[in-house]
């Protein structure tokens, strides 16, 4: 084969779909040569059509709602001077990191409590105390079981969460167990769930009466330190889910444009 043709074919294989390269000298020369061979010209035209379709398909991939807002919000929260925690560590360091993280969680718990003024009786304050109580320390389950029915029965037997069922968005997750958390005079059910590496707490309180409760079936997102939380109300029950990123919550709980928050 003509070595120039081989070189030109190789170059035209890298020609962009909508003609951005056509006027650049190497490409223009290759196109001139191709135009002198009808079979080659037809092949290039077919390639251009295929490229155009493929480009259109990729450019039609939908972008999730909320992504732009999340990017902008993250900049506000993090600021330009914070660096991410390195995650690529050896097993030996990992053990130390886990111990440090547990200590940090205890400090977080203490810190969150200190951030709440004693006289603040709003739901926002209650939520901070609740999450700090639930998230601090590593030994937090009074009852351990992977059977959701046993877990619900235990909670009911301890005077919280009668007839509680897991919201649909959490049903695929593995249950680890439960406990009763006391926060500001309220007894709250806590169910611990896992999904691979994710570790979540679902808290449920009945009969809360305080300012700032989330709207019925309308999730309210708030990040408390390093913990993502989302709260919603269903009837006389108020739920707080801690440990799930907002976008993951949307994926699990929003179907066909509606929130599916009930059990």
């Amino acid at each position, binding site marked *: 084969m003509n070595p120039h043709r081989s070189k030109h074919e190789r170059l035209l294989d*890298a020609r962009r779909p909508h003609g951005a390269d056509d006027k650049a000298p190497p490409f223009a020369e290759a196109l001139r040569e191709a135009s002198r061979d009808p079979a080659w010209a037809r092949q290039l035209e077919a390639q251009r059509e295929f490229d155009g379709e493929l480009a259109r398909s990729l450019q039609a991939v939908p972008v999730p709602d909320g992504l732009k807002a999340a990017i902008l919000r993250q900049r506000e929260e993090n600021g330009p001077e914070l660096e991410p925690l390195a995650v690529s560590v050896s097993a030996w360091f990992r053990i130390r990191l886990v111990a440090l993280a547990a200590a940090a969680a205890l400090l977080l718990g203490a810190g969150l409590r200190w951030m709440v003024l004693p006289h603040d009786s709003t739901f926002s304050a209650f939520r901070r105390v609740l999450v700090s109580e639930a998230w601090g320390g590593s030994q937090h389950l009074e009852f351990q079981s992977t059977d959701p029915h046993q877990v619900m029965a235990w909670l009911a037997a301890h005077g919280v969460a009668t007839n509680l069922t897991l919201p649909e968005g959490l049903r695929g997750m593995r249950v680890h167990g439960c406990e009763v958390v006391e926060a500001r005079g309220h007894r709250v059910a806590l169910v611990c769930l896992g999904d691979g590496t994710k570790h979540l707490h679902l808290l449920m309180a009945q009969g809360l009466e305080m300012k700032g409760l989330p709207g019925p079936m309308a999730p309210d997102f708030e990040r408390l330190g390093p913990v993502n939380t989302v709260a919603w109300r269903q009837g006389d029950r108020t739920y707080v889910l801690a440990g799930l990123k907002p976008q993951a919550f949307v994926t699990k709980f929003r179907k066909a444009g509606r929130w599916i928050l009930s059990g």
Partner: protein
Amino acid sequence: MTLDDATFDEIVNAHYAAVYRFAYSLAGQEEEAWDLTQESFAQLARKAAQIQERARVKTWLFTTLYRAFVDRCRRRSRHPEVAVTLLEEQLPAETAAPGERLDAAEVLRALNRLPDVFRAPLVLFYLEEHSYLEIAAILNVPPGTIMSRLSRGRKLLREWLTEAPTNASIPMAQILA
């Protein structure tokens, strides 16, 4: 490059969708694509001083995202295969207009079959129409290698996507019409 809030907003507006689509084409799942996109812009917020001119921001974002994706793949023991049904559930059924041969689900399915070294340059080529020289800079690979990978990857895609259609590959819009 200094990065005040207004400039950052402009950059996000201009590029977040393309960056996300690149992430999604690599990762195959929305949550990871979201994380990769968010992390790329977070790094931009922290390291804008490293970028000498505004015109280079887009390339910088794509490069950063690709490196983050490669790091994640290295940390995992295997890069997981994405179930075809997962992709189909995440794409609207009406993506393909009647008469179009290719829909997004088919294309992403075919791309997912490709090795990463072919997929990344092809996605950059089709999604953002980067030139092969730009792709070489983003992926830190010699231009000649990029030309080979584009050529070979495209050949495979064309074989897979232009086979005689089966029931599974007819765009949903045609079935419902």
